[in-house]
């Protein structure tokens, strides 16, 4: 299956009842798949008039207690920022998929990782974060979509799948696991009070500064719990590694091949692949910094993750960067050349 389709199917199986979308390359397969699939399983597919409307439809569906999703690609995610902020401010769960392309502006339609900052630091106005997952295979497109719904519900937070055009478009075998879906009977949801309870209000407006501050502080207490409980990373050949190559998503696949190439040449390289980008799996980097000499971050961007690696390692080791941007994909040979250079110049 294509990555985009695998993600869509996994979402349906994870109990996604409403999908609201808007066409944009390279994620449109998700909409197309949902348009066929949702009516067959009693779900809702709706093509909205804009990204803004789509995310606000998700807001409404999430406020009424059902699992809801929207998907887009980079420029469309900018438009969704407003709605994401409201969803976070109301502590509503939902899933937003970003199949990234190059930017800024209209950019291009080729795969990119241009939205790391947007996803992990600045998903919209205000003090908030969302869960961010970075799949690296078609199987993970499915698995992490499924997991995102569960975690979003658990923490009452928006969750983003930060994919890219390469993962969205490529085909790999995928298997779908059985998924137990919770009943949609959330006590805070706006579904009509049946004259049995006081009315529910879903709201992010606090006109008294002290109340807004208190709500933000409360939310950040939740974030502290999330940071403790949810930090996923894959570590590969890191134990004796002098050079830790790191990258997320599709970039990690190339980084892994380059690590294998380096090992074949006797260079002790290893890989850390963050699977959650927020929370950032700092623990894996901090541990690696105890023994490794240098980090090499590989991205399809100008280096948006570098600062997080520096923070996670408390700047104890140099963090080098190699990336291609604008839709250009770095090759294994290019990354391997960087590893060789570092081994030669920095491991003496």
């Amino acid at each position, binding site marked *: 299956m294509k990555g985009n389709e695998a993600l869509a199917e996994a979402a349906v199986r994870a109990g996604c*009842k409403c999908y609201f979308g808007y066409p944009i390359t390279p994620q449109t397969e998700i909409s197309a798949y949902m348009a066929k699939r949702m009516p067959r399983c009693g779900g809702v597919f709706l093509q909205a008039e804009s990204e803004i*409307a789509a995310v606000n*439809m998700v807001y409404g*569906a999430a406020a009424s207690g*059902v699992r809801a999703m929207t998907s887009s690609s980079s420029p469309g995610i900018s438009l969704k920022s407003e709605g994401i902020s409201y969803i976070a401010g109301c502590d509503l769960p939902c899933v937003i998929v970003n199949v990234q392309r190059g930017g800024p502006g209209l950019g291009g339609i080729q795969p990119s990782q241009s939205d790391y900052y947007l996803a992990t630091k600045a998903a919209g106005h205000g003090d908030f974060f969302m869960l961010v997952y970075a799949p690296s295979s078609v199987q993970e497109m499915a698995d992490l979509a499924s997991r995102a719904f569960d975690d979003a519900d658990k923490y009452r937070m928006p969750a983003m799948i930060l994919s890219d055009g390469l993962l969205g478009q490529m085909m790999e075998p995928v298997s779908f696991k059985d998924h137990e879906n919770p009943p949609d009977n959330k006590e805070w949801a706006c*579904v009509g009070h049946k004259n049995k309870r006081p009315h529910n209000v879903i709201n992010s407006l606090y006109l008294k500064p002290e109340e807004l501050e208190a709500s933000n502080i409360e939310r950040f207490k939740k974030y502290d719990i999330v940071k403790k409980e949810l930090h996923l990373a894959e570590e590969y050949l890191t134990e004796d590694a002098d050079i830790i190559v790191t990258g997320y998503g599709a970039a990690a696949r190339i980084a892994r091949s380059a690590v294998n190439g380096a090992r074949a040449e006797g260079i002790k390289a290893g890989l850390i692949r963050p699977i959650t980008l927020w929370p950032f799996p700092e623990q894996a980097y901090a541990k690696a910094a105890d023994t490794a000499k240098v980090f090499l971050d590989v991205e399809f961007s100008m280096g948006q993750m570098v600062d997080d690696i520096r923070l996670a390692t408390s700047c104890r080791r140099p963090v080098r960067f190699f990336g291609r941007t604008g839709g250009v994909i770095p090759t294994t040979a290019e990354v391997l050349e960087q590893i060789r250079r570092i081994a030669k110049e920095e491991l003496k």
Partner: protein
Amino acid sequence: MAVYKRPHSLLDVSMHFCPGCTHGIVHRLVCEVIDEMGIEGDTVGICPVGCSVTSYDYFGVDMIEAAHGRAPAVATGVKRSRPDKFVFTYQGDGDLAAIGTAETVHAATRGENITIIFINNTIYGMTGGQMAPTTLPGQVTQTTPFGRDPLTAGYPVRVCELLSTLTGTAYAERVAADSPAHIAAAKKAIRKGFEVQQNKQGFSIIEVLSTCPTNWGMTPVQAMERLRTEMIPYYPLGVYKDITAEK
């Protein structure tokens, strides 16, 4: 003997609206209709950004606060996931006809089975009296200090007329909140909107011509007079679309 009392679905709290503002009247009408139809426990309302931003403190039904202009999209999300619930939005003219034009037009285009209560008072109230899309030519506001000049600031939009051209609109009526007779007609229109929704007939909008004495710089009595003499001639009252009357 019938005793005039607060509708059950209107919460027993003081409202923040300015003296002479007609928001309170329209809130009451909506709640009377909800009570009379017996749908308080099955209704979800969407508040806008604007003077009615805190209407969730007044309506006793489940309420969701929307971003500026997005109420019809939020309502769509609720209605599609819970089609058996009554869903209404309560929006002002800036919210509905400026920043939320796309959401409004496309909710109507889809024949979304929701009811919009649209307050047209020709001005942005909450932010202190700026030009609205419905501000009349010549009307002085903070941002049209010399009066709205259509040559530079464009023309007022007639929402009911616009939406009545769309196939998905099932019911569109413009009413006014200025006199007992008009208020009675307004309530009938609001009830009609909810009934259209009940019968799953599609999108309904009730536009209520309203006053904003504070930002118009008038007394409540002068404001009512302006509604009658200036607004109604530009925004004629009446039913603009009613698919239940066709056939």
